[in-house]
């Protein structure tokens, strides 16, 4: 009797606990992201094009942020800094393995930073290219 009651009460709570374990932030990998963006773009990623895009000065965005390098520096294996002076960890996944492992973070920063630098969203192709370069260094 006692045990049956225990089981009735406990089984659902254990199941619920398992079902509701929050999704881990580390939900993706650089390779998986590059593949997803390439698929969306309908072409393979081009690391050289990503390099040119990342290092270029763009127009159309906000005046204080003409380039990705404004904050991430010309050498992504080194740390950059925000316009406030606060340090930013290196972007190259070889020196910073935490990079490009959280899909919500990637989406958020591409949205913000492409709008700041270019005044528009980046295309899937541009995202694939940039990640391919940053993942090849």
């Amino acid at each position, binding site marked *: 009797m006692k045990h049956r009651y225990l089981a009735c009460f406990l089984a*659902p709570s254990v199941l619920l606990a398992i079902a509701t374990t929050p999704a881990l932030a580390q939900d993706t990998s650089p390779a998986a992201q590059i593949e997803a963006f390439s698929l969306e773009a309908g072409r393979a990623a081009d690391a050289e094009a990503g390099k040119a895009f990342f290092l270029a000065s763009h127009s159309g965005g*906000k*005046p*204080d942020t003409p380039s990705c390098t404004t904050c991430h520096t010309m050498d992504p294996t080194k740390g950059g800094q925000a316009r*406030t*002076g606060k340090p930013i960890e290196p972007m190259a996944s070889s020196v910073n393995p935490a990079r490009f492992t959280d899909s919500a973070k990637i989406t958020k920063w591409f949205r*913000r930073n492409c*709008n700041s630098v270019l005044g528009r969203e980046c295309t899937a192709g541009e995202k694939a290219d940039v990640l391919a370069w940053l993942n090849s260094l």
Partner: protein
Amino acid sequence: MVRLLTALALGTAALLAPALAGAQDTPPSPEAQFTEECSACHLAFPAFFLPKESWSAIMNDLPNHFGEDASLDNDAMTAIEGYLVKHAARSNRRAFRKYDLETAPPLRITELGWFVHEHSNEVSRAAKKRAGTMTNCAACHRGAERGYFDDD
């Protein structure tokens, strides 16, 4: 027996409560979201530096945040604005008297009278160079991330 069953039921309820809450995919607390989202580019400035009118104005123009797009999804925006408003400075403080808080609240902590005054003479050129900008509190104030600024 009855007592045992009641105890069991209560115990299970206690076990179930957090699991049920989790079933709606509870987001982190507003404070945790504030700390996480607002510290990427600068210190998560303590809410008590500005009145609620300032925080609402800032939170409602994130795509144009001091020259950058700092946009957030609506849920995060609402949660963080709520946190900031709740912990804001009192609007009737002397520091804010010269502002029309309804139409033009202060947006920059670094422009407040007391901030300018506190930093006007005593900050050396070397310290300014090290910090880069006056927004980089933690460059000089080691306790800044804990809201402690009296260490100069």
